[in-house]
């Protein structure tokens, strides 16, 4: 069953230097229980896409396109309608675990309020459920620890707490924005295991935003590569990592350090990501592309369906 359907989604901002395009005509759909990875350099619009899905863009943002979640067009919902979905059916884990928890409130307050608002629970019952959820997410002695404040926990612990809070209402869709970027390597592995485990148990649909193809390989079914607010390539993880079709994906994979490549010089992509105010008329990657053709500068590539049912937006790949 298709749980999420995004059609032609764009997010733009009127800025002093001109119209800024953070997300540029993105479409994709997700089957229930699958995991999508979104990869791209800094500034490629990943978080903006997530914010649009949550309905949490700044009031200055102009959003167009459709978001259909579980049969409902949530992009047309007003604030009150959205409020009943956020934290309940769709939940999010924010990019930075150090700042996503309110430093002035105890975990008990920050967790129980979710259950009390969405499921009309009494405090006592909500507290019990929150304690169970903390335990499931690997917090020791949750019964006493739940009355602590965020600064009493390490980064990895806070990420667990954020995940536990997001899972309280057993959401159908969880969006995790760079859940491991701020953590050290062993903590990263633990958080990935935790996500894998809860996703498996709850048949939850998961969107993971990351810079790291390692995360994609270990967690995701599909992957979407973004650049300049647009999709460059979309496909199944196994195939896309084996055989990337887009020159940008190829570059990203080549510039990734792996154990096999020790000693060898890493590839470093020339140039910088585009300025979202002055996106080129054609492919945004054209100025940095090793395989650019004459038409790349002026004509936006149409999606090419690859043999493996993936999709690539590139003139050179067709």
């Amino acid at each position, binding site marked *: 069953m298709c749980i999420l359907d995004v059609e032609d989604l764009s997010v733009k901002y009127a800025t002093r230097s001109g119209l800024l395009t953070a997300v540029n005509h993105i479409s994709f759909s997700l089957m229930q229980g699958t995991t999508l990875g979104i990869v791209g350099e800094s500034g490629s619009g990943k978080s903006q896409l997530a914010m649009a899905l*949550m309905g*949490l863009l700044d009031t200055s943002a102009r959003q167009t396109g459709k978001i259909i979640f579980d049969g409902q067009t949530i992009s047309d919902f007003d*604030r009150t309608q*959205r*409020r*009943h*979905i*956020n*934290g*309940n059916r769709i*939940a*999010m884990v*924010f*990019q*930075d675990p150090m*700042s*996503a*928890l*309110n*430093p*002035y*409130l*105890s975990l008990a*307050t920050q967790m129980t*309020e*979710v259950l009390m*608002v*969405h499921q009309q629970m009494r405090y006592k019952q909500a507290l019990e459920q929150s304690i169970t959820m903390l335990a499931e997410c690997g917090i020791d002695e949750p019964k006493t620890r739940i009355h602590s*404040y965020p*600064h009493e926990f390490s980064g990895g612990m806070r990420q667990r707490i*954020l995940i536990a*809070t997001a899972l309280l209402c057993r959401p159908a869709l969880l969006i995790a924005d760079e859940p491991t970027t701020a953590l050290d390597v062993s903590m990263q592995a633990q958080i990935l295991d935790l996500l894998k485990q809860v996703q498996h148990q709850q048949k939850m649909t998961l969107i993971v935003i990351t810079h790291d193809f390692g995360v994609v390989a270990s967690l995701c079914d599909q992957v979407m590569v973004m650049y300049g607010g647009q999709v460059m390539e979309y496909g199944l993880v196994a195939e896309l990592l084996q055989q990337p079709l887009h020159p940008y994906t190829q570059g990203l994979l080549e510039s990734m350090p792996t154990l096999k490549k020790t000693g060898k010089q890493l590839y470093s992509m020339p140039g910088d990501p585009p300025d979202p105010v002055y996106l080129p008329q054609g492919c945004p990657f054209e100025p940095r592309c090793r395989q650019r053709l004459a038409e790349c500068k002026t004509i936006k590539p149409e999606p090419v369906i690859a043999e493996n049912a993936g999709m690539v937006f590139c003139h050179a790949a067709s």
Partner: protein
Amino acid sequence: MLLRYAFQRLLSAIPTLMVMVFIAFYLVHSAPGGPFDTEKVIAPEVRANLDRLYHLDQPLHKQFIYYLRSIMRGDLGPSFRYRDYSVNDLIAAGFPVSFKLGAAAMSLAVIIGSLLGMFAALYRNSVVDNTIQLFSVTGIAIPGFVIAPVMILLFSIDLKWLPAGGWQIGRWSDWVLPVIALALPQIAYIARLMRGSMIDVLNSVYIRAAYAKGLPTSLILRRHAFKPAFLPVLSYLGPASAGIITGSVVIEQIFSIPGIGRYFVQGAINRDYTLVLGVVVVYGILVIFANLVVDLLYAWLDPKVEY
């Protein structure tokens, strides 16, 4: 824990107070003239007797030691001008009035200032916000001794709504103008402070995260945003208490309110050394105490503070 911290703070306030008394003592005595220089000529023998009685014939540092010893005993000395009263008597009479005036102005400033700042932040860049900001800037720039006479002109003399001065027991209308005049600059400052901190808080990740949890806006403002936005205002209340005290000296004079601020002015004009110093000591204790209360409240509100 908290009690021990409070006690330590109070102990460490004693040297601060002594330095303050020292500076005030020399400043008061360095002013030309003395308490008994009046238009009426006093006989030299009488004058010599008076000077001896009040230790004015002694060198200044001796006088300071005498004074310090006396205030250690809690005795602020006799008034030079109001011969029948001790400074303790005068302050005991004036302090309740000044304290009520100051406390009322402070409460008004905190409540109205925070509310205005919060609304300005919530409706940022709207007409509401611009109006509040304009009010803030003017309120901070115009001193109390300008606002008070203007208010008297408008509300007492022109409109005849409120009395222009005086302070009678149980007459509430006496309070209105002086409290507002005293609070106005503080309201303006607190509103600006609160607006800035509220905007910062509303832009913070944890507020966005609270929206992502699907909480109602009212709950987010009340539970998640108010406390962190208010903390900078709370830290300002220490300095604000000093501002209120300085303001009250002027306001009590303008509205003829029989508080210690008026004694301070009268004492300074009359070179009533002990009275001026006595008021300075009381003001010093008040400011130190206000700062202590603010710090204790802060420690209580912010879970990260360890003491």
